[in-house]
């Protein structure tokens, strides 16, 4: 097992940041750690990496206890931090070389690894640039290169796409998938559910310092009652009988948003026909109809009663 965390408790005074947090990460997987801001994702990562003191619990990495001076374990870990952690006085190449040099002492090996990292994040044309000259997206790519240049077996990425443009975000996500294909085990923390859905083979949802649900994307969505979202565009919604729709069987909720009718229904039922019949009876004309599967936000909403982005 790559990571095994048991009963981790971390307090800041009266505030419990991690409340008997448990986590298991298997070799070769991409674990998405999803949760709203302040749910304890970064605290959990910092404890796992032995940066933060914790009050209780055990942390094993590669089946060995993780301690601040477990250099043999640290050698195989790469971290991409939430904030860009580079030296403004060093060029792109020098930054990557410096952080790679903290792991790899052989100059020739390091030269090769740095070149590969620059190539991997697509910063070849910017290797002599100073960080201040880079855009936000390029800076994030540099941040990633500094964390992975030494080609670690375990890579932890803590919200690496915050404040990044869509193009750079896609680039970063594709890069992470590529690293995983090359054999790295990955922990990816984010509060963007779409990103986690896109790259994670398994997802852990966090709230208030503990994991409240864990499984594959499909497994998580099966945990909740909500089966699909039916969206109907109403051409003459004036006389809509919302209470009548809510009273239909297998309907969880119906909500009108201007000309849109958004209905959440239970899983595995043929719910569309009774809804259409009901609207036909009320002589309401329908423009477009489309259906969506539930999102991770629905999972979070159903478990905690609040939105993931709250």
């Amino acid at each position: 097992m790559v990571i095994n965390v048991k009963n981790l408790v971390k307090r800041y005074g009266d505030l419990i940041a991690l409340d008997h947090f448990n986590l298991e990460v298997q070799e070769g997987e991409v674990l998405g750690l999803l949760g709203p801001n302040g749910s304890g994702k970064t605290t959990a990562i910092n404890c796992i990496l032995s940066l933060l003191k914790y009050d209780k619990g055990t942390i094993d990495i590669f089946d060995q206890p993780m301690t601040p001076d477990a250099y043999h374990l640290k050698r195989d870990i790469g971290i991409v931090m939430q904030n860009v952690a580079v030296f403004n006085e060093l060029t792109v190449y020098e930054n990557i070389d410096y952080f790679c040099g903290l792991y790899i002492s052989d100059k020739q090996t390091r030269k090769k690894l740095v070149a590969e990292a620059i190539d991997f994040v697509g910063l070849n044309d910017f290797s002599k640039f100073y960080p201040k000259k880079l855009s936000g997206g390029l800076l994030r790519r540099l941040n990633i290169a500094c964390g992975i240049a030494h080609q670690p077996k375990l890579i932890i990425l803590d919200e690496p796409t915050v404040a990044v443009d869509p193009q750079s975000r896609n680039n970063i996500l594709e890069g992470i998938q590529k690293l995983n294909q090359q054999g790295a085990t990955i922990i990816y923390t984010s509060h963007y559910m779409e990103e986690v859905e896109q790259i994670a083979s398994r997802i852990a949802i966090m709230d208030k310092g503990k994991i409240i649900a864990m499984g594959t994307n499909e497994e998580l969505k099966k945990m909740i009652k909500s089966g699909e979202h039916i969206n109907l565009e109403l051409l003459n919604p004036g006389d809509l009988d919302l209470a009548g729709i809510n009273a239909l069987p297998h309907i969880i909720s119906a909500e009108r948003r201007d000309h849109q009718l958004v209905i959440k229904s239970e899983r595995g039922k043929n719910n569309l026909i009774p809804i259409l019949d009901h609207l036909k009876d009320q002589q309401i004309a329908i423009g477009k109809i489309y259906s969506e599967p539930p999102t991770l936000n629905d999972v979070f909403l159903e478990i905690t009663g609040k939105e993931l982005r709250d």
Partner: protein
Amino acid sequence: MFLFNYRYRLKCILRDRELMFWTLMFPILLATLFNLAFSNITSAEEFVKVKVAVVENEDLDANPAFSEALDDTTDIFEVTYTTRANADELLTNNQIDGYIVFDPDLNLVVNRSGLNQTIIRGFLDDFLQSSATIVTVITKNSTALDQGILAGITNRTEYLRAVSASNSNPDPVVNYFYALIAMTCLYGGFLGVKEVVAIQADLSDVGARINLAPTNKLSVLISSMLAATTVQLVELLILLAFVIGVLGISFGDQLGYVALTCVVGSLTGVTFGACVGVIVKKGEGLKTGILIGSTMTMCFLAGMMFADMKYIIATKIPILGYLNPANLITDSFYALYYYNTHTQFFTNILLLCGFTILFSAITYFVLRRQKYASL
């Protein structure tokens, strides 16, 4: 790892333009301003010769002894021989302080009273007194001339002699420059703060990244501090070369000991900054503010803004002088320049070493923890 980190830290420090300005360019600028300000003070104190005119006429020709006596006063008087009319005009235009005329007796004409007029008057009184003495002696003893008695009349014997108690003559200006060097040493604290912030996970993101790497933190700390001290020392030597070579300020001839003071002073400054960096838990701005405030206070007490302050502290609260690194650095240069022995110098150097060890120990004990309570 040690040299790898050392090399990169040197690059980081040298490329930090703001830091290089405050630790190198600012002291050079300040030294230049000091020199401009103090050179005017010294020039104001220089003796300016008294301008005096002597009216050429037959009576003057009849008193060759007077002209001879005046020829011996070239260090005091700038003499112009002219006509009476011209002398009057020069006096009216304040181009001379007074003029001397035989009419037929010796007269001094001035248009105001002051130091220069008193000097001319003093010379004339002395001449008249000596002349009268010679006349009296010859009148009473006609053989006096042959006996050589008259030769001693114009001789003046000083019964007091000025003996310098130090290697060099007292110069109040040099202390300002010594305090400036002390300030530069303590400005090495900026470098100390930078290095500590760079390796502390709770102070910077790069610090967190370094803490996650499989490297010995103490080794990284020592090589970083060494890089900071190297830069600080080179900056200090550039400043010294400028102050001695360009501005002409004397640091005596014991350059080996001057260099030793610079090395110890740099170490004290860098470790002082590191200590402030680890003790103050707030942002880098506050750390820098505290560093500047404490450095300037120490330099003030060492006499950088008011030279007598050093003396006041030494006489009223001597313990404060020994607890002030800036004063110890200033005093080391002072001792090398003035004193014949090295007792005071080595006392200062030992105290500075003590401060360096104290600051280093505090820094180490705060930094040695490997996990943080919060980030």
